[in-house]
């Protein structure tokens, strides 16, 4: 049986029509890479090279006696990035799985004005599109 469920990225791309007046153009950009994206998605599903124990979430750990220091520094206007530049609150130092293979190791990253990150080697675009469609 052909794995039709794996075609949902294309549906997500079309869903952009509803989201923005420029959505059609963005969907077009996504479709230009649709074959590469499909390859990466399926390869990842079979080989699971990205999988690892999520120790940062799955390990029992508690914090106590918390002290918080928050001091307003400045108001920033007209920022172009959708997220803080240099943010590292999601940084993982202790992951053991490294490497990649074929297309998975060749990451093409395009950051559009809407903050959509296109990554052939990862799933970011699909996650972003899902959020975008909401």
């Amino acid at each position, binding site marked *: *049986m*052909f*794995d039709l469920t794996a*075609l949902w990225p*294309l549906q997500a791309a079309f869903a952009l029509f509803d989201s923005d*007046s*420029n*959505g*059609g*153009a963005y969907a*077009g*950009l996504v*479709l*230009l890479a*649709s*074959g*590469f994206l*499909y390859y990466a998605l*399926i390869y990842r*599903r*079979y*080989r*699971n*090279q990205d*999988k690892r*124990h999520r*120790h*940062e979430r*799955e*390990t*029992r750990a*508690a*914090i106590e*006696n*918390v*002290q*918080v*220091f*928050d*001091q*307003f*520094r*400045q*108001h*920033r206007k*007209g920022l172009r990035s*959708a997220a*803080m530049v240099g*943010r*590292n*609150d999601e*940084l993982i*130092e*202790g992951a*053991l799985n*490294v*490497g990649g*293979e074929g297309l998975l*190791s060749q990451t093409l990253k395009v950051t559009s004005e809407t*903050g959509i990150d296109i990554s052939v080697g990862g799933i970011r675009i699909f996650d972003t599109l899902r959020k975008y469609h909401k």
Partner: protein
Amino acid sequence: MPDLPTQQDLPPVAVGQHPSQQPPQPEQPPFSPPQPPQPEQPQVVQTAGDAKDGIDKCPHCGSSDIELNPQTGMLHCHYCHSEWSAPADALTGDVHQLSGIVIGSGAQDIIPSVDVVMTFKCSACGAEVIVDTREALQARCHWCRNTLSVNEQIPNGAVPDVVVPFRLTREQAQQHIEQFVSKRQFYANPTFKREFTTENIMGVYLPYMVVDVKGHVRMTGQGEHLVRRYTVGSKENRETRYDADLYDLGRDFDLLVDDLTVEASSERLQQNTVANSNNVINTILPFPMETAVQFNANYLRGYTSEKRDTNREALLGLIGAQTRDLARNRAKATATFYDRGIRWDTLDLAVSGQLWKTAYLPVWLYSYLQVKNDGSRFLHYVAVNGVTGETMGSVPVHKPKLLLVSGLIEVVGIVVGLALILLFA
């Protein structure tokens, strides 16, 4: 983790309170630099109890015909059918009470000169029986058929502090693996599909280091909170812009980590996914360590095991990195206001207590050796957690088929994509 910086209190502020409601604070948190490392000798806790090498007898009838019953997770005597287990009491306790470095006697450093092949004199008949601890911790006396076990901890890495017994039967594991592979059939390598069978799966006890950490964490950085999102420019050249408030941040808290688990086999620690699929075995962590029992070689009967070959010192960096990951992850809960993200500039972890123990953890493994067209070999695993049933695996891909379908999608995508760009741009 030898660095133990001293504590200096931060101004106390209620967690979750909006920053604008906070009283005025000094511009930078008054943090002190880390102090020099404090060398400390580990305290070794004996975990073997009164375990002895040789014939391990049923406490009720004296038979040595003992095996794990995976239904109950207890040892079962095949002669009198009684069941029992010994809880692993020696290294359990509240992480709050941890102080200094405590290690189980099974986690002591491996001394390379210690023999891995051991010779026992059977206490029933006097015959000499050889056990190669790299492959097994039990052997049958070839004369009187009694089972001889290696239970004493000698510094060769063979006997751990605790063992988590298998709770999943072979049949249950087979179902998990078949279900996993059946969802990945269309693009699976045809040779793999032809040869796939779960008849040869193996129950393996793999060696892990399980670590509790008590520490104090101090973090400083900056966070951004979104104030406004808007669009600028003409219709042809529109851009999205953001206004945000920038804050200096400091977090200071005690961190209590329970059962952080890492591989204690140098081979399993190698998780370069180009070269192997060990990462799928890593994925099925964690194991419920509350089901751990005192080691007894009879738990391994009918299963295979892999000897530990990695010492505590080699894992310090990894444990430190994963503990910092936990600190960052838990700190997020105290900083949900910063929806554009946080950049932590410093993270000081001062460890005041650590507990290290070695464990054999149960894994059902299906393995498939793929020989590629260029002659190279790749070992694919499908692994099942022997307690929780969590399953992860690597299935070899039929690349020509996947490339063909991807190519067709790419052609259609280019045509439709260009049409959309011309239409909307």
